[in-house]
């Protein structure tokens, strides 16, 4: 069975070859390389992974990700970023995907009316052209939408049902002002006790081309690994999407210190302990291989 880590990040130290933006958790001299990742994967029996761009959204900022895809074409696929103010995103999308192993783009903002009672005109949604081009070119859209955008997604999915969509991190939509970095250098998202996603992104299961990442637990949970306070969220996702539409991921490198890469390779066993083996294999990699079209390993 193929094991695929379907969402994580790698980056190099800042250099002329690999320029990127810096932040307090990703200073210029920090690196979390593909080789370090491959070491963790090898040690834990993980075959392939989806590299998701961080460190900037310009073409140049993607240099390290593209380098990794070129160096390890049978191990990685990639997801890029699009500058949010790009009025004509098509060329940017095509450049990054042209024979590179990059298959789609991550969006954290959808861009439309804040009020769900406003009339929603799909063509006026800011990312409409991104969705349209993704539909035309079969690009995957990787969504970690803001809470304020959650009501716009059904309109776009209804308009472009052929677009493959992956909802990141349990389908959760972070609220304004609820993001921070914890003491271990991990993203932290303060979430409501009753998860609003139950009534927004979880309802998107009616669209056949929507998958959900089973990942990011550390950022939402108020308990230590294996995050037992989130077992209900996992069971709801399984109930609504089914085992064929969930994909496991670690969100490397944020989890290296706590709980550790190896621990996260067991998270599905811990939070969905009653899965039949076939469904477990689906979530741990077979779904990602099929839906994201990972190549066979050489």
């Amino acid at each position, binding site marked *: 069975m193929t094991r695929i880590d379907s969402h994580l990040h790698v980056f190099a130290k800042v250099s002329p070859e690999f320029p990127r933006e810096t932040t307090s958790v990703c200073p210029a001299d920090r690196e979390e390389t593909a080789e370090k990742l491959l070491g963790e994967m090898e040690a834990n029996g993980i075959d392939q992974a989806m590299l998701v761009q961080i460190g900037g959204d310009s073409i140049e900022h993607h240099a390290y990700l593209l380098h990794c895809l070129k160096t390890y074409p049978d191990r990685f696929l990639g997801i890029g970023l699009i500058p949010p103010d790009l009025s004509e995103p098509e060329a940017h999308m095509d450049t990054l995907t042209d024979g590179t192993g990059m298959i789609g783009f991550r969006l954290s903002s959808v861009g439309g009316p804040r009020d*769900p009672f406003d009339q929603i005109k799909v063509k006026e949604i800011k990312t409409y052209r991104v969705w349209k081009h993704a539909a035309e070119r079969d690009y995957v859209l990787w969504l970690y939408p*803001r809470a304020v955008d959650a009501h716009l997604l059904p309109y776009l999915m209804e308009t472009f049902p052929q677009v493959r969509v992956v909802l990141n991190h349990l389908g959760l939509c972070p609220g304004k002002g609820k993001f921070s970095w914890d003491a271990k250098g991990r993203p932290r998202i303060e979430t409501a006790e009753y998860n609003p996603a139950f009534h927004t992104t979880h*309802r998107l299961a009616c669209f056949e081309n929507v998958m959900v990442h089973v990942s990011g637990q550390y950022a939402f949970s108020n308990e230590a690994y294996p995050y037992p306070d989130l077992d209900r969220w996992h069971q709801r996702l399984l109930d609504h999407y089914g085992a064929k539409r969930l994909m496991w991921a670690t969100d490397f490198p944020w989890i290296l210190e706590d709980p550790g890469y190896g621990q996260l390779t067991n998270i599905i066993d811990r939070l969905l302990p009653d899965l039949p083996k076939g469904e477990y294999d689906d979530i741990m990699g077979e779904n990602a291989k099929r839906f994201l079209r990972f190549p066979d390993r050489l």
Partner: protein
Amino acid sequence: MIRPTAAQTAQWEEKGYLVFENAIPADELKRLQTVFDHWAEKCKPAWLDRVEAGEAAASFYDIPDPFDKDEIFVDLIDHPSYYGSLMAFTDDELILLGPQVRTVPPGPVCYTGWHPDVPHSNPLHIKVQIYVNDVDPKAGEFAYVPGSHKPNAGPYSKAQRLEAMPGHKRFPGKAGTAIMFNSYGWHTAMDNPTDTPRKSLILIYEKRVPERVDPKRFASIAHLCTTSERRKLFSLEE
């Protein structure tokens, strides 16, 4: 108190629902609509802020603490149009769990899918949904699977396309219509691709068991509960 007819009782037992057309008379309905719209408008900015903060879903909107906002919401709890049926079906041991004064924005995907509210191990659980505006067919109307409230019914699955649920019945209706249903049964709001939001009240009741009686739950409206019967209904006395 208007008790259900034999035909209504038979339908309740067999199908799990009753529909009370014109349950809210015209003059009362007009006042309800005015009060509903007033408070919905007034409370909306705070809800939008909560949506943006990730604390509330964007797919429906409840007026918070409606009993503290207007007495009409209290008077709907034991409204004569359906109160006698509620009492009859709970052997006169009825308590209120709470009201939801809810607006659902239109959109391609409704905020909820097919589900029962409680398992059969729970005391009998009944909801009354009252339409505040006209709810046309295929405009977010309530829907129910008749007979699905029975212990041996089903199995049912969470049909991802709501219209794919076998045997379901939709309940479009005029403003003032009340739909009472046994919430062991599978139900949902349907998708609403129109431009019209659905406005309704969802009143949640249960058959009284001692452990569900919480005198603090509605203590803020004790002054409106001047009869023993109402005080029992609102859990203000044993």
